[in-house]
């Protein structure tokens, strides 16, 4: 009988158990980033930056050099690394609380300077790690531990769309929002990550891939229904697609 490989672990991730809750899409996103780094032969020359959130331990997972940054500051840390080690592939892995709230200045200015780094932005519309508080990305009427009656725009504004916001910044080169809710979209998401790292390799500037992600535990919805909730509620507010592609204009220095 002929055997066929249908699944294998990626070299891009360290062989150990992930710390994410069952059914959380952080795991799929890790796998994709790890695969792309491994397939592009970038692992040996990469430095990743773990942020503060459920992915704080990602320095234990990505199979390359890693630094752990303070809450929100990963894009500044990435800037420091890339400026002194321009030959390294530098990426951050950040949640929505980290990137869109406390780290707003750092992400905007990294994009503004056109730092040649890649940002993996995992938007699950909630503060996962601290137990499900409201994030700037939390949807209207979404219940969290600090919006128990549902988020109201009168008090807390409307959810922030980061890809759209960063698309207005001249320095940003490539911005795409993707999702991992089914195999087709997983494949598409992987292509987006590949594109983002290509942008960096070609020294074309700042790239960010935003993932619509889930948090079954703090949403209080089982993993399967969480995927459906993301499709029904998150994606309509956070439409998938390429928000900026200035790779044509960016001078390819290679």
């Amino acid at each position, binding site marked *: 009988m002929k055997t066929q490989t249908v699944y294998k672990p990626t070299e891009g991730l360290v062989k150990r158990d992930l710390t994410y809750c069952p059914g959380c899409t952080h795991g799929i996103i890790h796998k994709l980033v790890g695969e792309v780094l491994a397939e592009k032969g970038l*692992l040996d*020359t990469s*430095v990743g930056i773990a942020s503060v959130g459920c992915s704080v331990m990602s320095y234990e997972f990505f*199979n390359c050099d890693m*630094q752990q940054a303070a809450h929100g500051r990963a894009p*500044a840390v990435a800037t420091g690394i890339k400026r002194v080690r321009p030959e*390294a592939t530098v990426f951050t892995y950040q949640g929505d609380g980290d990137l869109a709230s406390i780290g707003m200045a*750092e992400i905007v200015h990294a994009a503004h300077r056109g730092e040649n780094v890649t940002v993996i932005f995992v938007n699950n519309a909630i503060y996962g790690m601290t137990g499900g508080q409201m994030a700037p990305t939390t949807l209207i009427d979404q219940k969290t531990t600090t919006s128990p009656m549902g988020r109201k725009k009168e008090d807390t504004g409307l959810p922030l769309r980061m890809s759209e916001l960063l698309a207005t910044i001249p320095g940003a080169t490539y911005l795409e929002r993707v999702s991992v809710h089914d195999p087709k979209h997983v494949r598409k998401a992987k292509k987006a990550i590949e594109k983002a790292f290509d942008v960096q390799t070609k020294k074309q500037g700042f790239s960010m891939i935003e993932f619509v992600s889930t948090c079954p535990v703090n949403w209080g919805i089982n993993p399967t229904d969480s995927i459906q909730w993301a499709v029904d509620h998150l994606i309509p507010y956070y439409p998938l697609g390429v928000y900026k592609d200035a790779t044509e204009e960016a001078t390819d220095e290679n």
Partner: protein
Amino acid sequence: MGKVLMKGNEAMALAAIKGGCDAFFGYPITPQNEIPEYLSYHMVKEGRVFVQAESEVAAINMVYGAAGAGARVLTSSSSPGIALKQEGISYLAGAELPCVIISVMRGGPGLGGIQPSQGDYNQITRGGGNGDYHLLAFAPESLQETVDIVKQSFDLADYYRNPVIIAVDGLIGQMMEPVEIDKEVPKKTLQAKDWAADGHSGERGKRNTIVSLHLDAYDLERHNLKLKAKYDEMIQNEQRYELINIDQAEVVIVAYGTMARVARSAIAALKEEGINVGMIRPISIWPFPRKAFKQLPDTVHTLLTVEMSLGQMNQDVHLANNGRLNVEFYGRAGGVVPETQEIVDAVKKIVKGRNQ
């Protein structure tokens, strides 16, 4: 190159380049702006890295990244900016990353003023960052001493894998003085930074991680004890001070930075009047030079701490003195620099009070 006349801030910037600084990250604030201004030209000309960050918060985190990637990194700021940097400084100390920080102190609290001050002694030596950590902290008196310390600090930071902070008051930053930039300074024997996460895991054959997170309490305690052993080594080896005119002194002034310069004039003036006054001049403020206090002769009855603040180092003086001698304090705040005559009067008051 012999002596040249330079402004303090520019001399510090040049000294950093001579000390092997690879990268500078900072944000404008008075009275230290000449440092980034100088470096924005000269670092770039030397093919090194200069970035004006969006804030002090970003700047110190850029320092963290670049230091973690193995570079020699500098940032400079002044009081409110150093306040913003404290989070990053705590992370640097926790992750054992070397860097050099220059603080050109101004008056506070809050936005305070822009005149020279020593009101950040506690900020520098106690820090506002979280956790059990210390910085190696120096507070030089002259431009020559400042330049020498800036150059050495890159070695010391690498040697201890710890941030080094150099605190000068705005006067030292702004004054002009002849200085020999290329004067030899002691060097440390350094090991290769095989711990750096610099994107060479392939060559190295293993991946490196830079972290300050230790979720297990016993693990974190082990890390805390490892840091403490390092701080103990600093306490043992890095206490720096100058003893001035202490033989036969009855009063010994304790002063650092610009304040020590004024105290020197006061000591000379008092000598003419037959009053014998000495000085302990701390050069390292962390570790505080406790050793100096053990070297005072029996003639001394009083220590007079003089600061451009309302008494911050004075607490360390009390601790070092440990109840042995009488301790008095004189200080001015807000950017007012005590004049020679004020110190002379403070000493005379002590001497008179004693002879009554």
